[in-house]
């Protein structure tokens, strides 16, 4: 019955978690739930308390007050049954350097009650050519891909990814993303921290932004911080010698010019775009660099975090 109860509750529950150090209040009353199969992304500047919160959920630290449960277990107690069902990809993870990629995946797989075959994992992270290479001879990016494979070896229900694609080249990043996406489609819950907004945008079902130890906004990446209700931005460059006075009337629109590029900001994006392009076609005016866009996740993130000054007050990992 216990296990059935555990599958009914959210995959991760964080309730009123505080973490205080002598003179630092690193996490200030954070609460959220993550449903089974969701990709949850925690964003925030350095020193916001992200790492502390993540380590509490992973069970490396215990909160000063509040409750955390992962798959129905208290991660602070670190029960084996829980560790058997989670995978953790740490930011700076150590690997026994004298062993080969294949040996490491085989060895680590034995630690779990069920595990994925090494060849399958090697294929998944595209390290086929490196199966018999010792870890000490891998490049930085190859090591990170091995990290990902090691996090997946126990076929976990919940996967923690701490900046999983830092140091990847664009191709490897795209591939890692599609790998993670495929994993989510098999019902895995993913807790992701990243510095890359495009990564959060591509992968996350839900994003939370942490500033000064508290969550200041959370929601789907398309809607976080009221992003879906923010005005549309239309940009284009007019031919030389032409100014914005020639444009048709655009109700409820703010028009500005920066370095020859006109920016039209309006809550009636479709109507405005129609009016501008209709006018351009009718008058035979060439509009270069024409684009219509919603504010990006990065714009919203920067607005949310601009009040806070990044600092390095995050406590060091104790030995």
């Amino acid at each position, binding site marked *: 019955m216990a296990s059935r109860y555990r599958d009914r509750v959210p995959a991760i529950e964080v309730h009123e978690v505080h973490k205080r150090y002598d003179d630092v209040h690193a996490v200030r009353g954070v609460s959220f739930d993550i449903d089974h199969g969701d990709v949850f992304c925690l964003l925030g500047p350095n020193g916001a308390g992200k790492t502390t919160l993540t380590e509490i959920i992973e069970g490396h630290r215990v909160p000063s007050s509040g409750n955390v449960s992962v798959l129905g277990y208290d991660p602070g107690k670190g029960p084996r049954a829980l560790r058997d069902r989670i995978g953790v990809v740490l930011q700076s993870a*150590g690997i026994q350097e004298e062993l080969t990629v294949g040996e490491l995946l085989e060895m680590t797989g034995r630690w779990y009650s069920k595990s994925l075959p090494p060849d399958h994992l090697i294929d998944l992270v595209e390290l086929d050519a490196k199966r018999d290479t010792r870890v000490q001879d891998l490049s930085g990016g190859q090591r990170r891909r091995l990290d990902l494979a*090691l996090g997946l070896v126990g076929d976990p229900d919940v996967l923690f990814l701490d900046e999983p694609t830092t140091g990847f080249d664009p191709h490897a990043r795209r591939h890692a993303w599609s790998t993670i996406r495929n994993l989510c489609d098999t019902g895995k819950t993913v807790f992701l921290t990243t510095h890359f907004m495009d990564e959060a945008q591509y992968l996350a079902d839900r994003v939370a932004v942490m500033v000064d130890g508290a969550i200041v906004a959370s929601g789907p990446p398309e809607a976080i911080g009221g992003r879906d209700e923010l005005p549309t931005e239309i940009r284009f460059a007019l031919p030389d010698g032409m100014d914005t006075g020639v444009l048709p009337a655009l109700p409820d629109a703010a028009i500005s010019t920066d370095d020859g590029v006109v920016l039209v900001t309006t809550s009636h994006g479709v109507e405005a775009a129609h009016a501008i392009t209709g006018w351009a076609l009718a008058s035979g005016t060439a509009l270069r660099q024409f684009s219509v866009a919603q504010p990006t996740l990065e714009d919203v993130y920067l607005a949310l975090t601009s009040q806070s000054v990044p600092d390095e007050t995050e406590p060091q990992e104790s030995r």
Partner: protein
Amino acid sequence: MTTTTTDLKLAAWQVRYQQRSFWRNKRAAFFSIAFPALFLVIFGGLNGGHLKVRGDLSFVDFYTPSIMAYAVVLICFNSTALIVATLRERDVLKRVRTTPIPGVVYGAGIVGSMAIVLLIAIGVLFVIGVPLYGAHVPGAKTIGMLLTLILGAAVFTTLGIAAAKLIGKPENGAGLITIITLPMIFLSNIWFPIDGAPQWVQDIAKVMPLRPLADGLQSAFDPRFGGTAIMWRDLIPLLIWLTIGAVLMTWYLRSLNRRA
């Protein structure tokens, strides 16, 4: 299968992986096997004589067990301390903690692997000492020798794991560990008997853990001792040191595992 059986199997697998890892580090392999063997070859070859202070004991009968004790220090203390410090500094242990393998099973893999290394080193020294240089075969005294050896290995393994705490960066660890062990090695009848040294030097030597290990092993090769050479004189201090080592090791491993 019960959890215990599964974990024993897992520990056996860990020993295999740790063995592979160990022998691929050529430096560690050299210092554990070739280094003590070279000592015995050189000392045994240079000194064909006898030790007056030990009732005309031949030098090879003295050096064979002495270098065996030295090998225990090199492998169980020096190498183990360096391996544990390296695993900690590279955050390997941090990763291991996120996985389901119990710390005890992971540790058993390392200790089991070092036991195999020690067994090989002792075997090599035995072959050099006995058939090559004609040291006295211990016979029934093998029992006393093995008992001392097992206890001594346990003492230095627990102390070695605890000593990992003293090592910051593993690159500087080898030097630091040598500074800890060298004075003890000099005072413990390893390079030469200190039977003639002043009483206060003898007193310091007696409270250190290497002295009873060296003395116990030497008794097994010394024709003046008979029977099984089970030397309580040496086994009791070793048991006391094992208790101290176990406490220090547990204390260090707990601090390593503490959640902030």
